[in-house]
């Protein structure tokens, strides 16, 4: 095993400030990214009452998905081919 537990605290100590900043940053990004889907789920509740027909529901789902797909383009691995090729696991149980 290459990580002796005794070596760890020193290193983490040294990175404490960066670590905290990074977390705040991650949370912030997470909050911003969540907003569209939260908004769309609120819409869903409002609209289900008014729009019972499946055609309209279909449009709503499409609009929701469009927002999601924009996000996916952002978070999807840039080189999908290489990403998929290199994801190799040892079999488990």
């Amino acid at each position, binding site marked *: *095993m*290459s*990580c002796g*537990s005794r070596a*760890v*605290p020193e*290193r*983490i100590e040294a*990175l404490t400030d960066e*670590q905290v900043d990074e*977390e705040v940053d*991650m949370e912030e*990004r*997470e909050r911003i*990214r969540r907003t569209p*889907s939260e908004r*769309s*789920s609120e819409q869903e509740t409002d609209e289900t009452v008014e729009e019972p027909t*499946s055609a309209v*529901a279909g449009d709503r*789902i*499409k609009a*929701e*998905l*469009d927002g*999601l*797909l924009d*996000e*996916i383009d952002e*978070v*999807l*691995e840039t080189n*999908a*081919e290489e*990403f*998929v*090729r*290199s*994801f*190799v*696991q*040892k*079999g*488990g*149980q």
Partner: protein
Amino acid sequence: MAIPKICGIETEYGIALRGVEDPNPITASAILINSYLSELARRGGAVHGAPQVGWDFVDETPDRDARGFMAAGAMPPDVETHMVNAVLTNGARYYVDHAHPELSTPECADARSVVVFDRAAELILERSMRDADTFLPEGQSIVVYKNNSDGKGNSYGCHENYLFDRETPFGNIVRFITPHFVTRQVFCGAGKVGSEIGAGPEAVPFQLSQRADFFEEEVGLETTLKRPIVNTRDEPHADPSKYRRLHVIVGDANMSEVATFLKVGTTAIVSCMIEDEWLPGRLVLRAPVPAIRSVSTDLSLARPIELEDGTRITALELQRELHRLAVEWAAARGLDCVGADVGAEILQRWDAVLTGLESDRESVAGQVDWVAKLRVVDAYRDRHGLGWGDARLRALDLQYHDLRPDRSLARRVGLERLCGDEEIEAAVTEPPHDTRAYFRGRCLAKFGDEVVSANWDSLVFDIGSDPLRRVPMMEPGRGTASHVASVIDGSRNAAELLDRLGS
């Protein structure tokens, strides 16, 4: 009479070490877990001592077969004793298994509790990635995936465990649980782009289950080769004269909380019905192995499978019949053995998900992983005009299971939540109150320095005088908060605790 269905989930996670040529997954898994444990130790406080407590293998007998014999040529699974292996204060076990990080939830009293601790496990893995990143050299990072295959024929499991009455003949369990295992994937399949047993994208563009490709036997002891639909490992981790533990290896790891709830909840109810001899012989399948693949690859949910008497029935119809019988069983026997309120919710959600799948599949995209995933994959395909063989669709599939919050697709598709962030956060460190996991977790939190080793059915204390003192916990339903909280709270050290317990 059915006994309380104490249950839990153990998940092997996929792992990638980025920024390294030819990374070793065993080392990566060890770094991941050690980083988390080191960070816990560094912070001290409520988790004091826990990382030092090792797992005790005295009780492990993975080669014992529930059928009472050892199949010729069968390979019993190895237990690896040399790798990282920790017990956490929430009663869980966190370790390296084969070449994967694995986390076993503590014993839970019901399906809802399993969902909470399964989500807490995700949070522990998420934090482990973060902790490993501070430890790894610049440019390297570890990414964890909660899925069951690498898309290239290598699979790893998400296993469930259910406490069974020893008096129930194992043959009955096999006979009656198999139809449920073959068909429950319609609502608890995690979805997969493509096939890993030679079918091209034209034949199998997408299937319901991550795991169905990998099942080759109806029943057996193995878990890594020739996987059986019903696993026969007879290792109850409890009084073997009273209990069995049904070890389920056929399921997918779910991202949807509702899917996990339904997977565990319906299986707990079907298990109780088997103990109560409630299920009729007519629901037994003629050929389960071809059937599990047929159901997984049929996106129309309309292709029938054959029962032993020649009747043809779809997976949805079979589930509908199981649900109908479950409602009758609950009316006659009550739902106490799966938790009264939780049991009622299982029956209601089981009905709702079947209705959704029967009538308007899109309506269950917030509950069923494969529907949620397929919806996104289809929309992405349309937007970019992609064929089914395109690598981007496989990338989407993988990304669905990524546990990094800023990368996970599952966290973006609007999956319904069953439990709150606060209770998940609490479950990272606090054990369930209603099983023996309470005793294990609280002892580690309070007397961690004096606990030498732990396993599912005992704790070993070193109170400074020879010999070491082993406290057996052969009853999974004892050692709960109502049994032992006051004893633990009132003891200043392990010696006092042992005195009060009278051991």
